[in-house]
């Protein structure tokens, strides 16, 4: 039976009813926007993590009245605090800011040389905190040694950056949801247009005994092919744009990204292939629902 004729793959005439141009173009645009949205969310999360790490690790210690005697009258308050910090392994890169550096920090508020004002300025020590826990114990120890000493971390900035990151990620999620909804609407409109164009053929096939599920599957398969084509193209076209944006953001990003493929983080590489899969799911599901709903208008 080698000479059996092949059954027509497109007996509903869907190739002409569901154009292979407009729908892939629109879905491609949606995928492009979605790729930018995912990249935005990933970039904000990555940058925020990088900044939060830096901010949380920065330690600033102010020692008021630094030349006065410490609590045990053994040394100056400043020397006592510096000495104590050197015995804490988690406090790294301990360094006292020079008077010139302190003046520079205060100059926006107190003028070019705040020392001329005769104000009692504290000594400022910076360090990098590599401890796993908080700085509560260190703060208490320094307070005991030199009452009035302030230990400040970047916790306030960490919280603010976290809030900013959350809002940016929420915006990205909203963009993705809107893109998905618009994508579903586009597929639904295209499917309705195809059904209108092939109404007579579909009615005949229905009256010859085709199951609703069989008709819906035929149309959904065509839609699936078009949406996947569009989504793959849109995602592929987004890659050079994302690489360019990653290059622009490189100075603010984690150093590890400089060696990543196209400068894009690994989670983004994992998320981008999901876009065509998601588009396929939306296209197939929307087409199935649209066709089955339309067929229910037939007896």
């Amino acid at each position, binding site marked *: 039976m080698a000479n059996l004729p092949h059954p027509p793959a497109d007996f509903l005439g869907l190739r002409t009813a569901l154009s292979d141009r407009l729908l892939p173009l629109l879905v491609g645009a949606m995928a492009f926007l979605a790729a930018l949205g995912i990249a935005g969310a990933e970039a904000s999360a990555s940058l925020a993590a990088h900044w939060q790490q830096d901010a949380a690790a920065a330690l600033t210690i102010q020692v008021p009245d630094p030349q006065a005697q410490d609590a045990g009258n053994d040394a100056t308050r400043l020397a006592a605090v510096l000495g104590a910090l050197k015995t804490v392994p988690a406090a790294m890169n301990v360094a006292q800011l020079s008077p010139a550096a302190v003046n520079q920090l205060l100059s926006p508020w107190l003028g070019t040389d705040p020392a001329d004002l005769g104000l009692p300025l504290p000594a400022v020590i910076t360090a990098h905190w590599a401890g796993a826990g908080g700085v509560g114990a260190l703060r208490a120890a320094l307070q005991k040694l030199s009452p009035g000493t302030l230990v400040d971390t970047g916790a306030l900035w960490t919280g603010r950056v976290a809030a900013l990151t959350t809002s940016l990620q929420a915006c990205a999620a909203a963009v993705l949801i809107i893109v998905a909804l618009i994508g579903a609407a586009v597929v639904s409109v295209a499917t309705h247009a195809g059904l209108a164009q092939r109404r007579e*053929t579909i009615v*005949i096939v229905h*009256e010859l005994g085709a199951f609703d599920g069989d008709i819906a599957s035929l149309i959904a398969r065509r839609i699936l092919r078009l949406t996947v084509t569009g989504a793959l193209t849109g995602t592929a076209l987004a890659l050079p744009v994302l690489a360019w944006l990653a290059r622009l953001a490189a100075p603010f990003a984690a150093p590890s990204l400089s060696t990543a493929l196209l400068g894009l983080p690994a989670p983004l590489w994992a998320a981008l292939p999901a876009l065509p899969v998601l588009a396929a799911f939306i296209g197939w599901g929307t087409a199935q629902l649209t066709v089955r709903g339309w067929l229910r208008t037939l*007896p």
Partner: protein
Amino acid sequence: MVLFEDVWLTYRHAAHPGANTPEVLRGISFEIPEGGMRWLTGPSGAGKTSLLKLIYLSEHPARGHIEVLGTPVAKIARNQASLLRRRIGVVYQDFRLLPQLNAYDNIALPMRLAHRSETNIHADVLEIMKWVGLSHRSQALPFELSGGEQQRIAIARAVVSRPKLLIADEPTGNLDDDQAQRVMLLLTALNKLGTTVIVATHNTTLMQRHPAPALRIESGRLVQDG
């Protein structure tokens, strides 16, 4: 086999959604036994095609009871309705061939929709094309066929699945006398093999040549049964 009890039919009004047209069929009752044959006759617009549509489940009655092949159709599930349609062959007045399919694929369509194997389909299609005298036109698209050839392809499509019930709406309307006679011989042969046949026609000569009980409809009412 086919049972109508006090069946009424209205259509939805195209210009006024929600409203219905006046009754197209009014209080139709008849019964056609299994293996029977009926002519369906009446003037144009009397409701013949509408009655046939009710039988092949293309319309729902406004009220009344219908059974087709022993199945009440009022609350039939959609998949059950599809399975029932596969047991009914329909020859449409306007052929209704799929324009993008050649003659072979048009005839094979009902069997492919029923997921029959291509081997079985091939043998049956070749046999039926020979039967309707169009073996040499298997690759022709509908627009390449004459009206009479399209009619014969439509008939072949309707009978290729060996339906239990065959409905033909003016099946000889586009055929010359010889072809019409040939088609009627095909239909009566099917009827003798056990298929219930209903043929709507205006052709009284044909009815005289092939005597069978007739259902006559005038203005939506059944005025003759037998």
